[in-house]
């Protein structure tokens, strides 16, 4: 077992984790933060994307022990005081989800994109989502949602 101290969504956690526990397993199975999804477990689909020290990463491809001392944000940390994050709102407004399985990862990725590039072109948005798979929407409304969020 490995002892780690981390911050998740501005709350401090001190946890004992297995040497081989994946970060996404810690979040979902131990801490009950089930907003982060596992679509593939092979680093392909992006459903598990969260932020570690401000960068979007695939939490199925990180060991929990690796994030000792780091700041994490999951999709649960986006809304504040009962208000959805602007990107969550614009996903809702633009019907950018159907089953919603891929959505938490895409939303986390989109938040990271707009933090690094406040006015991405359509091509830049599409390139940024290279590591995500959505089986329902056909992506069009996802792109629209990000574009709408830019203007807000």
């Amino acid at each position, binding site marked *: 077992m*490995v002892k780690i101290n981390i911050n998740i969504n501005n709350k401090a956690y001190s946890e004992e984790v*297995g*040497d*081989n526990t*994946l970060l996404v397993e810690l979040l979902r199975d131990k801490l009950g933060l089930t907003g982060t999804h596992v679509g593939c*477990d*092979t*680093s392909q689909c*992006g459903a598990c*994307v969260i932020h570690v020290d401000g*960068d*979007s*990463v*695939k939490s199925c*491809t*990180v*060991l929990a*022990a*690796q994030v*000792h001392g780091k700041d994490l944000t999951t999709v649960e940390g986006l809304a504040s005081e009962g208000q959805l994050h602007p990107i969550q709102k614009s996903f809702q407004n633009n019907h950018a989800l159907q089953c919603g399985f891929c959505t938490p990862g895409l939303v986390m*990725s989109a938040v*990271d*994109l707009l933090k690094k590039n406040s006015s991405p072109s359509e091509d830049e948005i599409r390139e*940024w989502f*290279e*590591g*995500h798979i959505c089986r329902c929407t056909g992506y069009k409304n996802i792109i629209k949602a990000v574009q709408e969020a830019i203007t807000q």
Partner: protein
Amino acid sequence: MYNFRYHKAETIETARSLIAQSDDPKILAGGHTLIPTLKQRLSQPSDIIDISSIDELKMITLGDGFVTIGALCTHSDISNSPDIKKNIKGLADLAKQIGDPQVRHKGTIGGSVANADPAADYPAAVLALDGEITTSAENHKATNFFVDMFETSLDSDEIITGIRLKIPNSSTYKKFRNPASGYAMVGVFMARYDNDVKIAVTGASSSAYRMLDVEDSLKSNFNNDIMADVDIDTTNFNDDIHASAKYRGVILKVLLEEAILELK
């Protein structure tokens, strides 16, 4: 996932002694190759030595016509580095074409070079930029480093500390991505120096290699015309579900032409 012992090393010295004390250790950097292979049990080490918090391996330094990139610099650090963009544009472009943004936030140049995947991008750049791989034990010339598929001249207890690259006058990376995996079906890195040209190819065969014949032709005449006389030998090219050896040969020729046109 099956079990192993996890250790975090804060210094190169600690990493070395942890490696020495373990039965079958494996270094963990970005984990974006190692963790997937652990999940599939393609690799079953007894101990994982996490070097990712060794800050001295995260530096990019410039001097004497060379850039030295710390082994733990991520693909995203490299593609966004003003020093790399200014001095080796081809390398910044290469790093930006690896995987996806989340992979680039974690994956490191040291991990990619150590892994020597035949379809990885960096090996082409390291060869064409007259690279040297510096480790906890010695320096390896890139030309002797990439031995075969997933095989390098590293000893099992050696830690890559940095990659030293000679700054070219101009450079470019042309990649034909596998549409599913994003890895290079074929990738060509071309670098121009005073009276010199260096070209290396990845993805086409079991290991990245230099194209000395084309380099020679271009040295005397840096022009697309020379391609009319280039015969690509595809005997040892990869021939798999992604592309036949012959197709890879055709792609290589097109990429070479594009690179020449860009650097002309």
